[in-house]
């Protein structure tokens, strides 16, 4: 944790906010039974302003909604926040069929009697965890009504036929919401009003360059710059609906560099990790065209990694 706090200090994140998070950690010690649910920091979200806003919201006891297109680091930030606050995480991926039972819990027969099996929302409310409601707008609004009381000032969950549980003081709900492609919908007002909403910006060229350099310290700066530009061009193409956002994949970019290090050519690596993300042949052609206008297909590791 100290390492994460240090990194954030280096990023220029407000020290008082970081101190607040440290106090929070001390005040609410996580249940040791769930220690393995506290995420490790595999990568760092870059973006001072967003960090400050998010930490402030969580410290004030509010819930957070991160809205933005793909590859803006929503999930990474969720994990980073849980790590910073030292909270166990329960993750729920929303889809059109998500219902109250999937969130709160269901009746089940344990061989002896009918009992209640707790769902992720129940667990995080009880154990003071961070509940990540991933792509919350994919679910039908009415099935989310069950969350209303948990998310507003009442901070309770009423499980019909069972208990009325109070949401632990350390528990927070962090929702993410993707917009801008087929199949996404707006969140209704009742739900969105219960969150503080951060609109996630596209990663800046500068921050992406630092991300690449942090992951690949020996990468040639010139080549890294071209990968950064390529990512921006793909994102713009998706934003203009010329391609879907499947190819706008930060993980894919990092994987491509990893494969080049393993010995593949740049063309092969990007084909595997970016082009193949979509299954539509025409879209693949457009993505290939975009890559070809930025990165030569025959770059090998000796050119990409100079260190």
């Amino acid at each position, binding site marked *: 944790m100290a390492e994460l706090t240090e990194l954030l200090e280096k990023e220029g994140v407000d020290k008082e906010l970081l101190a607040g998070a440290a106090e929070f950690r001390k005040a609410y010690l996580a249940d040791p039974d769930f220690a393995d649910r506290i995420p490790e920091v595999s990568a760092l979200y870059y973006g001072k302003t967003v960090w400050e806003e998010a930490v402030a919201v969580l410290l004030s006891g509010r819930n957070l909604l991160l809205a933005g297109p793909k590859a803006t680091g929503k999930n990474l930030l969720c994990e980073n926040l849980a790590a910073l606050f030292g909270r166990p995480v329960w993750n729920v991926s929303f889809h*059109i*069929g998500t*219902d109250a*039972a999937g969130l709160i819990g*269901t*009746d*089940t*027969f344990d061989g002896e009697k*009918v009992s209640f*099996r707790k769902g992720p929302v129940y667990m995080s409310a009880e154990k003071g965890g961070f509940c990540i409601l991933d792509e919350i707008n994919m679910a*039908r609004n009415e099935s989310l009504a069950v969350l209303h009381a948990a998310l507003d000032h009442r901070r309770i969950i009423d499980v019909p036929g069972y208990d009325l549980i109070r949401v632990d003081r350390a528990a927070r709900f962090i929702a993410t919401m993707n917009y801008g492609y*087929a*199949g996404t*919908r707006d969140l209704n007002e009742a739900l969105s009003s219960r969150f503080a909403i951060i609109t996630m910006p596209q990663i800046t060229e500068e921050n992406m360059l630092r991300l690449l350099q942090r992951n690949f310290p020996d990468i040639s700066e*010139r080549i890294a710059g*071209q990968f950064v*530009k390529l990512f921006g*061009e793909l994102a*713009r*193409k998706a934003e*203009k*609906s*010329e391609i879907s956002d499947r190819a706008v994949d930060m993980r894919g970019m990092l994987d491509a560099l990893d494969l080049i290090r393993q010995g593949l050519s740049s063309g092969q690596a990007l084909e595997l990790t970016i082009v193949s993300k979509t299954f*539509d*042949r*025409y*879209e693949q*052609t*457009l993505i290939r*065209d*975009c890559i*070809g*206008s*930025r*990165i*030569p297909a025959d770059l090998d590791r000796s050119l990409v990694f100079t260190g």
Partner: protein
Amino acid sequence: MIKRQYSGNERRARNYIWNAAGRYDFEPSFLAFSPDGSPDMYYNLVIGLAYKWLDMEVIQECIKGYSASRSAEEFDDLFWLGLENCVYEKEIGERPVLEKLRREKAEAWFKSAADMSRQQMEMQSMTVYEQQMIRWSKVLGRFCHAGGRSLALAGRLLFSGSLDAEGAVGEMTGILLDFFRTDISRLKEGGERKGILFALSLPGLPWKAPRQRLFLRTGDGRGDLDTNVRLGHTMNRRVRLPSGPDMDFVRAAFGEPSLPEREMTALEEDCCRDLHAACRLHVTDGVKKEQGREAFGELSGILKRAADQEKVNRRFVSDNALLIHESIRELSARLDLLFAEYFRRMPERGRSGSLIPEKAYRLKVFRDPSVFYREGTLTERNVEVTLLLDASMSRMNVQEIIASEAYIMAESLEKIHIPVRVLTFRTIRGITVLERLRNTKEKSSGRIFRFFSGGWNRDGLAFRALGSLLEAERGEKEQLLIVLTDACPNDDMPALMDPSGRALKEYEGVTAVSDTEKAVHDLRKAGIRTAAVFFGSVSHLENVQQIYGKEYVRIRKLNRIADAAQDLIRMTLQEMTLQI
């Protein structure tokens, strides 16, 4: 839903350009293609970079300036050769891959030049050919033998990267004056090339070859393609009832009736009254192949037009196969989500979920743990969609687009297991023909490509007939009818204003619109949710509002039909849910 009305290769070329320009808010005036029709990567990048670095309005003004010259095409090629060097120098620092792409372009040019036939060589502008050779030799570091004047011109064409658009135009103006004795300021602007946009003369392509292969118009520059055709009435006629030969004609042209005679008679008795008392109806599944017989005169013309149009429709779809496939995928995903949103999943029994009290005894008695309801994977979609297409002559210029959009709609709905039927309507010789291009039980939508336009449209009668047909077929399902219309009912068979047939009015304007409005009202009363996709002139906007009320979506481009239909489906589903 076909995102833009241009082929896959054109869209690729545009994407290269937008990508290099770093913005997507313009329609490129120039596109570059290789002789095989594929987009030329390097030159499209150059065009995009010109948009990025230079003020293209200034460049285009200059091109317009010499467009009246007989050598205008030659000048285009030279100008772009100059601009190529200029934007290359500007961009190379930011995009190192350009160096490699430029070399590849140069190599490709030499390969292509070597393959050029003598005839092609003869048609080539030698000045352009020589200048390209000098440029690409220089790029590859090869020696190039050329005369002093040519080398001087080549030197001048190396526009510096420090130039802005005005500077580049200044260079070009100087070159035209010094080497071609052409003074732009004295040339009259050539109007005939206005609006047509130019690509580049590429190696291997005869310079004077028909420019359709090279030149493209903008996405919007499709002339009057989307304009409706309007038919005019002949004046001072008396009502003429459709005769036996007229019915024979319609049967031969559109196919035998698909309903038994008794039902057809009942349908006509039911619908052909009041204003339509003099009309007749014909419901068909289309001409069967074996039905082909010798045809003469007008009939042969119609059959030929239908067959030709079917070929055009199919070609259009195969030319745009990838885009159409993509559109179907996208629309079906959206509709799937839409239906999932409005229709509850059917519960199914499982080992967890909410306890079913009346089944709880089974736990104790049979040790059967499946006494819970959980949300199932199947969604109940109790709805059927009917797509009704106006097939009158007014649709003449847009037939393949309508056919492909209807195809996209039908296939998308089929994919998510919503029964869909597609019908067309038109009136010919006083007989209103409803042709079923797809039935709900059909798995393939291929017959939709038989769509062709011709005849008049007597909307009121067609809607009445369709209402009766749906009533007979509907069963338990909710019915949703989407009409593609220009909201301009118009038939040469007059409207009978009294049963004697003495008082006649043309079936057009207020009479026809009120009649259609009433027919839609009746459809809705019968529980058929009717909505319209309006594609037509703004002067008919009032008509569409009068006929369909709020349930219509207006589209300005026909390739938005499927999108609009999706909006209408959403609107209707919302309304349905409110009523449940």
